[in-house]
């Protein structure tokens, strides 16, 4: 037993060392998921604020109209397309959904009305049938702004009003889903794509067959690989975690110990899939199609790239049993919902169940050449 421990620890240590010398492996395991994090993180960053892409066509030369244009351009709600200057151009762009609506300030808009001392006029909002809702919302917003201006000039009484009040309990934002999904993606990458490429290559060069002439046992080799990959995986996950906290204001609500244990169990389970596929395949051509067949459903149905709550109910039920789903769910529960060890027991149970099945298969189908 002590000899086995020495065998395993030496193989695990040298495996991990090799990883950190391999720039390509570092890129795919650590840098690549980080790039995804920054892309998706930036995409979901300004969530919560609504904005409209509009063209603003000013045909009036009143100072009020000019003022309105200047304000609109600095507005956060309106994104004014400065390239569009005519209604025809704008209609063309609206057809291609590049614009949500077009605001036209007609000739004479904002001129002082004779016999009064305030400006008047009507702004037109043009829209396409497919952006009806957006245009109506935009018209409402404009009306509100005009009401403020109107109230300044003509005194009115408004007995009825609406006020918004926050419930003070923040709901999950899109980045919380992005984070747990990306961790799932990263674990899938280092657990499956890595070994599926590495093992057939080692077989092709006869490196595994050479180990087969020594007393090295399959289980010793497996354990050593699991340890080194778990170690490498913690690095990759730590890089994602630290970047999310630093750049995307992720708040870690749960316990770090639970988080680390859960991530290790996740890597263990998912890496078993890679071991089974890579250990079975005699060459890359055998490995690639089967690994795509296994990983694609998980990539799209386990909540890595878009949340599962968007799926129809039956699909949510089915995809809930995929090995990667408890990984993504568990991480979200721990990190963004602050759930404890006992709360993620269902997820851990599912992962352990999968591990038993996956590793039984992996031992069965492994070949040294």
């Amino acid at each position: 037993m002590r000899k086995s421990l020495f065998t395993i620890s030496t193989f695990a240590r040298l495996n991990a060392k090799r990883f950190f010398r391999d720039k390509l492996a570092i890129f795919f395991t650590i840098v690549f998921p980080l790039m995804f994090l920054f892309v998706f993180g930036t995409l979901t960053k300004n969530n919560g604020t609504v904005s409209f892409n509009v063209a603003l066509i000013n045909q009036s030369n009143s100072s009020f109209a000019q003022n309105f244009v200047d304000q609109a351009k600095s507005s956060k709600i309106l994104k004014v397309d400065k390239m569009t200057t005519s209604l025809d151009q704008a209609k063309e762009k609206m057809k291609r959904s590049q614009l949500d609506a077009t605001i036209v300030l007609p000739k004479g808009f904002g001129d002082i009305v004779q016999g009064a001392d305030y400006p008047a006029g009507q702004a037109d909002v043009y829209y396409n049938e497919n952006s009806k809702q957006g245009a109506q919302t935009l018209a409402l917003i404009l009306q509100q702004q005009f009401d403020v201006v109107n109230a300044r000039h003509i005194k009115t009484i408004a007995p009825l009003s609406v006020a918004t009040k926050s419930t003070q309990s923040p709901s999950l934002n899109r980045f919380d889903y992005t984070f747990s999904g990306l961790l799932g993606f990263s674990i899938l990458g280092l657990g499956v794509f890595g070994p599926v490429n590495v093992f057939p290559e080692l077989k092709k060069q006869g490196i595994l067959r050479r180990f087969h002439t020594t007393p090295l046992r399959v289980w010793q080799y497996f354990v050593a690989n699991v340890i080194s990959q778990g170690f490498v995986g913690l690095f990759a996950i730590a890089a994602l975690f630290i970047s999310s906290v630093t750049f995307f204001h992720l708040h870690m609500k749960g316990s770090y110990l639970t988080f680390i244990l859960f991530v290790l169990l996740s890597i263990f389970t998912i890496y078993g899939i890679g071991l089974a596929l890579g250990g079975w395949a005699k060459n890359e051509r055998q490995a690639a199609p089967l690994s795509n067949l296994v990983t694609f459903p998980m990539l799209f149905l386990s909540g890595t790239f878009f949340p599962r709550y968007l799926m129809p109910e039956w699909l949510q039920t089915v995809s809930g049993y995929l090995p990667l789903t408890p990984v993504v769910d568990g991480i979200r529960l721990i990190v963004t919902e602050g759930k404890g060890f006992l709360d993620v027991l269902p997820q851990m149970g599912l992962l352990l169940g999968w591990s038993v099945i996956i590793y039984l298969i992996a031992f069965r189908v492994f070949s040294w050449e």
Partner: protein
Amino acid sequence: MADNIVIVKNLTKKYADKKVVDGISFSVRRGEIFGILGPNGAGKTTTLEMIEAIREIDGGSASINHIDVSEHPQKVRYIIGVQPQSPAFQDKTKLKEIIELFSAAYGEKVDPMEMLKSVNLEEKANEYVENLSGGQRQRLSIAASLVHNPKVFFMDEPTTGLDPQARRNLWDLVKSIQKKGITVILTTHYLEEAEMLCDRVAIMDQGKIIALDSPHNLIKELLGRGFKKERHVEQADLEDVFIDLTGKKLRD
């Protein structure tokens, strides 16, 4: 009867009804260098792999040091060292780490520098394996196969692809391994290599052993049958000229 360390009886391997190794029997004496000679496809490598316990034996038996190979493959692995035909190692690994890795596979801890010194690679201990020349890789592979001090050492075409200097160096190395008391079994298709190194050779063709004796006796027997070479044999050949001009010094 001499002390036989490897005993092979009626060994057979079939691939899709074709007998690649066809019921061969031979014994290897403790401490000798035993060569298996034959053209490509004669079944040399398959024979070795069955004795090394990495390929299943379809018929007959093989034993090493009185341990049956198919019954106790794991026990056999502890007492043999194997040099494959084209040794390869995982890249981004230092030479001394390769030695550590292989000794760990046997559950043993050895001094990597000492092992590397025995094959003249101690200066390269901290280099990566991908920076080695063909001859150096062969020598590293030999060191890796001997970390556990095996009783029998198998070498599959050890000098294929090496330049004459590296080949001569390897011959010296094989002889020094024999001096340590290790029995060596090697395959080759270089006849002068067999003549130079081997105490006895088995000549294999189409899965069968067609002759087995010391190189000297095999030649004597052929001459005894009245064989004459068509061409007059020079006292030196082109390889002697090459070595004379370029020297015996190792180039890698």
